[in-house]
C-alpha cells in the first residue's frame, strides 16, 4: 500500500477496479488491474502508448466493458451489463479529438445534452451552458462553431460541455495530445482549475509537467499492468521500478 492511499480517510473509493482484465482479439491489453480513486483525488495515468492506460479510462467511463473483474464507478457496477448504463450522464469525458458536434455552435454543444437527456427547458439549459463556457473562459465565443475556434478553444468547449451535466468524475483521455504546443497551456490551465475546485479527475496524459504539479497520485502503466504508483515527487524524483525509470528517462530527456 502506498502513502497516497494510506493517507486517505477510510471512505469508500468513488472508483474501484479489482482484477480487471481486457483483451482485444488475442491481445491482452489489461492484466488483473486493481485501482482505487477517492473523492476529490486527481489521478494521472502515464505510460508508453499501448500500455493500457486509455483502456483503463474507457472502462471507467463505460465505453468499454471489462472481460473479467469488478468495476465500481460512482456506485454503479459497470461489470453488470444490466446496470452499466446508469453511469451515463454522471461522468464527464474529454477526448483527444475533442468530438465537438460540428453542426452546433459552442452554446449548442454545451446545452444539447441538458435539453435532450436532462429534459431541462431550453432557457435554463442555455443559462447553465453559458455558466460552463464562462468557467473555461469562452463565454464570448458562445455563438462560434467548432470550425471557427482554435484547437485549444475547441477542447475548452468540450470541457465545458462535460462539466455542464455536473459530473461526479471527469476523465481526460490525452486531452492535449492533438493540440499545437502553444495551445496546450490554456487547456491544462482549465484542468488545474478543476483540480483546485476539488473535482475528482482521472487523467491520461503525456504532459509530465501537469502530472508533476497537479496529480495527487501518479500511476505508471506498462504492458497492461500497473508497474508503479505513488505521489508525483516519489515517481518523478525517485522511481523504484526499472521500467518507470526508463520511461521517464525517455520522455523527460528529449
Amino acid at each position, binding site marked *: 500500500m502506498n502513502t497516497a492511499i494510506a493517507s486517505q480517510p477510510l471512505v469508500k473509493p468513488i472508483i474501484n477496479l479489482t482484477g480487471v482484465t481486457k483483451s482485444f482479439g488475442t491481445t491482452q491489453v489489461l492484466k488483473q488491474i486493481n485501482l482505487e480513486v477517492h473523492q476529490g483525488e486527481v489521478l494521472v495515468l502515464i505510460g508508453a502508448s499501448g500500455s493500457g492506460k486509455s483502456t483503463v479510462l474507457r472502462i471507467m467511463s463505460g465505453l468499454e466493458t471489462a472481460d473479467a473483474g469488478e468495476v465500481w464507478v460512482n456506485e454503479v457496477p459497470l461489470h453488470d451489463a444490466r446496470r452499466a448504463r446508469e453511469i*451515463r450522464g454522471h461522468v464527464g469525458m474529454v477526448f483527444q479529438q475533442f468530438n465537438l458536434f460540428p453542426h452546433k455552435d459552442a452554446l449548442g454543444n454545451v446545452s444539447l445534452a441538458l435539453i435532450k437527456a436532462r429534459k431541462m427547458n431550453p432557457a435554463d439549459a442555455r443559462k447553465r451552458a453559458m455558466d460552463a463556457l464562462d468557467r473555461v473562459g469562452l463565454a464570448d465565443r458562445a455563438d462560434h462553431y467548432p470550425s471557427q475556434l482554435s484547437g485549444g478553444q475547441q477542447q475548452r468547449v468540450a470541457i465545458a460541455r462535460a462539466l455542464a451535466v455536473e459530473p461526479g468524475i471527469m476523465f481526460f483521455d490525452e486531452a492535449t495530445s492533438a493540440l499545437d504546443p502553444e495551445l496546450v497551456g490554456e487547456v491544462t490551465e482549465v484542468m488545474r482549475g478543476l483540480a483546485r475546485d476539488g473535482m475528482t479527475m482521472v487523467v491520461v496524459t503525456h504532459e509530465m509537467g501537469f502530472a508533476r504539479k497537479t496529480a495527487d497520485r501518479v500511476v505508471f502503466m506498462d504492458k497492461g499492468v500497473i508497474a508503479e504508483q505513488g505521489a508525483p515527487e516519489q515517481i518523478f524524483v525517485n522511481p523504484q521500478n526499472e521500467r518507470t525509470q526508463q520511461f521517464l528517462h525517455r520522455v523527460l530527456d528529449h
Partner: protein
Amino acid sequence: MTSDLLMSSLPILLQGLLTTLILSVAAIVGGTLVGLLAAVLRTFGPWGTPRLARLYIELFRGTPVLITLMFIYFGVSYFGYAIDVFAAGVIGLSVYQGAYIAEVFRSGIESVQKGQWEVSQILGLSKMQAFFSVILPQTGKIVLPPLIGQYLSLIKDTSIVSMIGMSELMHQGQAIVDRIGQPVEIYGLVALLYFIVCFPLSRWVRRHDRRRSLLS
C-alpha cells in the same frame, strides 16, 4: 406533330403528370421513412433487427420493382382484401426504394466518427437521441446527393405503376396511343414531360457530387 393532336392530348398527359407527381411525393416520403428505419435497425437496432433489416434490403435490391408492385396489388386481393391502385403504388415504390435509400443512409451514418457516438453516450443521450440530434444532422453533405439521385430513379419508376393500371403519365400516354396511334409523337411528349421534372434534380445531383469530390 400537328397542333390538333397536341391540343387534344396535352391536357390528358398533364393530368397524368399530376398523378405521377403526387405518387412520387407520397412514395418519396414513404421510401425515406422506410429507408431511414431500415438503416437505423441495420446499424444499431436491438436483438435480431439488424439481420432482418439486411434481409429486407437484399430482398428488394435483388428483385424488380414490377414484381413488388404485382405482389402487393394482386397479393392483397388474393387474401380477399381490396387495395386501391394508388395505395399499392405508394406502398410498392416505398418499400422497393426504401431498400436503396437505407443503404444511402447507412453510408452516411457510417461516415460519422465513432467519437460522436461515444461522447453522446457519456453525456447521457440515448441511442435514438444521439442518432437524431447528433449523427443524422451531420450526414447531410454525404447523404443528400445520392438521396436525391434515388428520388430521381423513384420518379422514373412510377411509370411502372402503369402496369397495374394506375392512370399516371405513362398510362395516359399509352391510352392515347391505343386510341389514335401516333406512338412516336405521344411517347416523345411523355418522355419530354418526365425529362422536365427530372433534369433539374439530375443537374443538382451532378453539381453537388462534383463539389463533394473536389472537397475530398
